[in-house]
Each structure stands twice: as C-alpha cells, then as structure tokens.
C-alpha cells in the first residue's frame, strides 16, 4: 500500500479530500467519493452528455461545470472559467468547488433552463419519465418557473428501424447515440444533421438503423428521444419491477434487467450502474425477442437507488424506511422552492402585478388595433 501511494493524486472536492490515479477526471474523482460514502451522492456533478463507456463523450452539455479554485499545488491560481468536470483531469493539490460554490449552482440552474427551452414538458406521456436524467437534473438543479415565452422547436416522430422510435423534439443533443453507433456497431447510419438549434439526430434519408446492437441507443439516451417501441405506452416505469437476469447469448454478455408487471416481462434493458451508465451493451435479440421469464435465469431484484421513483411503494418491505428516518431524510434534503419572485399576500399588490403582467397582452392588442 505504501509504495503505491506516491503515484496517486490528491485533490479536494467540496472540502473532501480524495486520492485518485493520475489522469482521472474531476467527475470520476467526485464519483469515487460518493461510491465510498453513499450519503455524499449529492456532491457529484450531474452528467447529461458524458457517458463513461463511450469514448469522446462529454464536454457538450455543460451541466457538470465546476469551479477550480486552485489549479494545482504547483500552480495554485484558480482557473478563470468554470470547467467541465467530466473531461478535466485532476492535478495534484487541485481544489474543486461544486455544491459549495454559488456561481456553479447558478450556472447549473441556467443550463437546466437552456436545456428545457426547447424540450417539451410532456413527461406525463413520456415513457422515459421516472428514469429521465433531464427530469432528475431539472428537479435537483432547475428553477420552478420558466422565462421562455417564445416558440419551441418541434419535429415529427419517426421510426428508425422496427424497434426504435426517434422523437427528436425531446432530444438534448448529447451525441451519446451517435457515439454508440460509432463505437459498438460497424456501420453508423444516423448522425447529427444541420447545425445550431436546428440540429437534429437523423438518418437524413429514411433508413432503418438495422444491426444487432442498434437497441443500445435507447439505453444511452438521457431523455425520451429514443424509445423502445415494444414498450411504448405499456406502463409507467415506476409501476414495473426490475429483476436482474441472464442467459447464454452468442452475441452479447446476456446480462440484463427484466422489467416486470405482474408475471409479464414488459421490457428488457442492459444493466446500469449507479450513474445510469450501462455496464455491458446487449444485443437486440436479448432486448426485443426474449420476453418470457423462461428465456432467462433470474438473479433477483435489481438494486434501485432509494431516491429513485422506481423504488417508491415497492415490494421490498425490509427497505421501507422508518418514519423517523424518512423525516430526517426529508429534512436533510429540504430546500426552499427555488423561485426568486417576491411572494406577496397583499391584495393590492397582487392586483397591481396582475395588471403589469397583462401589459404585454394589452400592448399587442393595442398594436393590432393601431395597425
């Protein structure tokens, strides 16, 4: 142990010291802290585009921006801008501020806002709801209101192949599905077309994405842009029960999670780690064609994060929290509604505000009249 230690790099992340191997990113260092102590999970920067199993992913969504208050022991100057923690490597003596830095949290709030301005709030009819990273991100870091009053971009839903539907309107352009196709299939047929906020994931001309591993784009998608057609509208995920299972497969590892409603397997996905990343990609046969319990060797219930809605009101009586624990948890996670409007109860003021809010509408009708 003693002789390995000098090779490690020590950094301070939100006041917690952690030692990691050189070349580790700030994000991975933060995850290491949380993996050692689950109660620190909230310290880990959110990742909307970064996906460890995919090379070159990350750096795009800016959700994980953090403040480097001290660059390294050698050069203690702070970094002038916030840096993406998912692709920035640690240096010996680096001091990183995440949840302890007001500026970082403010920026993160604005990233939520940016990602949501062109995202439909159709969670009630979206299959991803309950396991959507954008939903979590918005819930944990977003604002309760939107300031966006303009038109949102929309696209038509299209089928890409027999099993996958692309609903581009929901896409946040993380590029994960593009990297997946590049890195685990031999021939990529979809990509990012156009540019700016007109960018879209597309095959350009209507082409089916047809290869044995195409279904994995569903698992890597952080939102409901790519969904499993065999599962669409079947069930809310929090009413399904995940079980780990495996089978001998000649194409992939065969290790999956089966999602049950009663005795029926509604869908099959790859197994994911704490950070929502798949452990091993699976083939389409396992995913789409093996939907009988008899196809599988069951291993037992999938471990679901306590904070996940999927674990709510569930079957494991032994995991149901005692009221005092739940209350403590609630108290520790309590935060005031994130809304900086002044709340007023005074009737006159409310009336006045309502008049002001109507100003614009009045203005428009006035304008229409004048013209």
């Amino acid at each position, binding site marked *: 142990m003693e002789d390995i230690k000098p090779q490690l790099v020590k950094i301070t992340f939100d006041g917690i010291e952690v030692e990691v191997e050189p070349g580790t990113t700030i994000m991975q260092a933060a995850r290491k802290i949380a993996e050692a102590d689950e109660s620190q999970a909230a310290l880990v920067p959110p990742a909307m585009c970064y996906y460890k199993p995919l090379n070159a992913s990350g750096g795009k969504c800016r959700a994980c921006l953090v403040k480097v208050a001290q660059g390294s022991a050698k050069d203690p100057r702070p970094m002038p801008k916030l840096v993406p923690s998912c692709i920035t490597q640690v240096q010996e003596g680096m001091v990183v501020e995440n949840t302890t830095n007001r500026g970082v949290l403010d920026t993160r709030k604005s990233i939520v806002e940016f990602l949501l301005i062109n995202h439909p709030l159709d969670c009630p009819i979206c299959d991803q709801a309950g396991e959507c990273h954008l939903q979590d991100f918005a819930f944990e870091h977003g604002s309760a209101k939107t300031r966006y009053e303009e038109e949102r971009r929309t696209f038509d839903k299209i089928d890409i192949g027999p099993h996958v539907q692309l609903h581009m309107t929901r896409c946040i352009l993380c590029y994960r599905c593009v990297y997946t196709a590049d890195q685990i299939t031999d021939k*990529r047929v979809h*990509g990012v077309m*156009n540019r700016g906020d007109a960018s879209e994931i597309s095959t*350009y*001309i209507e082409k089916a994405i047809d290869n044995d591993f195409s279904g994995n784009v569903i698992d890597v998608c952080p939102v409901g842009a790519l969904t499993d057609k065999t599962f669409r509208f079947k069930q809310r995920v929090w009413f399904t029960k995940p079980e780990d299972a495996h089978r001998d497969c000649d194409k992939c590892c065969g290790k999956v999670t089966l999602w049950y409603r009663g005795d029926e397997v509604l869908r099959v996905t790859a197994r994911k780690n704490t950070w929502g990343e798949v452990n091993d990609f699976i083939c389409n046969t396992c995913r789409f064609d093996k939907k009988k319990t008899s196809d599988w060797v069951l291993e037992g219930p999938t471990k679901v994060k306590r904070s996940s809605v999927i674990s709510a009101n569930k079957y494991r009586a032994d995991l149901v929290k005692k009221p005092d624990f739940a209350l403590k948890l609630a108290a520790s996670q309590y935060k005031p509604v994130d809304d900086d409007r002044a709340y007023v109860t005074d009737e006159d003021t409310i009336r006045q505000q309502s008049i002001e809010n109507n100003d614009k509408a009045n203005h428009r009708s006035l304008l229409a009249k004048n013209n």
Partner: protein
Amino acid sequence: MTETPNLVAFTPERLEKVKEIIARYPEGRQKSALLPVLHVAQEQWGWLNSEVMDYVAGILSIQPVEVYEVASFYTMYHLDPVGKHVIEYCRTGPCCLMGGEDVYGHLKQKLGVEAGQTTADGLFTLKEVECLAACGWGPVFQIREQFYMNLTNDKVDQIIEDLSK
C-alpha cells in the same frame, strides 16, 4: 431547375480533379477531401441529392451519413434543387447600414420570390446568407464565384436583366 442527376458519376475532367484533391492529404486522411469534393459535385449537378452524396461517400470510402452530416452543416451546399443562378444575399449588419435591407426588398419584388424560393422560370434562387467579408463594399450579393458589390436598386435591375438574357 437544374436537372436531377440520373447517372451519378463525375465527368472525366472532374474525376481527375477529385483524384488530385484526394492525393493532397496524408495517407488515410482522404476524408479531408470531403468539403472540396462536395464543391466539385455541386459544380457539376447544381445541388447535392442523396445519390450524389452516396457517390461521394463511396469515392472517399466513408459512410454516407458522414457526408450528410457535413453537407447539412455548411451553408454553401444546396440540399434542394436550385435555379440556374443562386443569388446569395448578405443580410448582416454592415451591409444593412449601407441600405442593404432596402435593396433586398427591391430584389425580392423584382424576382417575385422570398428567401429560399426559386423564380417560376427556374432562373433565380434567392438565398439569404450571413457576412461575405465584403463589408466595405456593401450591400453585397454573390452568384457562384462572382461578388456583386455596392448594390443599388438600379444595379440590381441591371444584373437581373443581364442574367435573364
């Protein structure tokens, strides 16, 4: 309208040119030729339909989607049929200061089309573009490689007349 290419192949001269372009780059980096080769393709067919792009992908040994991604990113590549002359009109600030918007209004009226449309006779397609790096000589538009500068309504009339002949 430019005819839809039915037989997708470069002319022998253009194929020579394409080979010369590909040879410019280091071994294994032939994808670098994509932008220049797409310009050559557009020169031949006027616009890039998916057969043309697939053909280019084949020549460069890359996936067709890599060509679509690139062609749709850059504004110079026409992904829809265009008229004989594509008028690329600068709509950016410095040209507007020199009366660019008024001249543009006149041009639209003259042609009877809006941005993105082609005249009924198939002669002109009007496109709005951003700054063409000719701000001191604005208002400016470009047709193929030719810049038309210091535009006025009269000049526009003259240019359109000359090109309609």
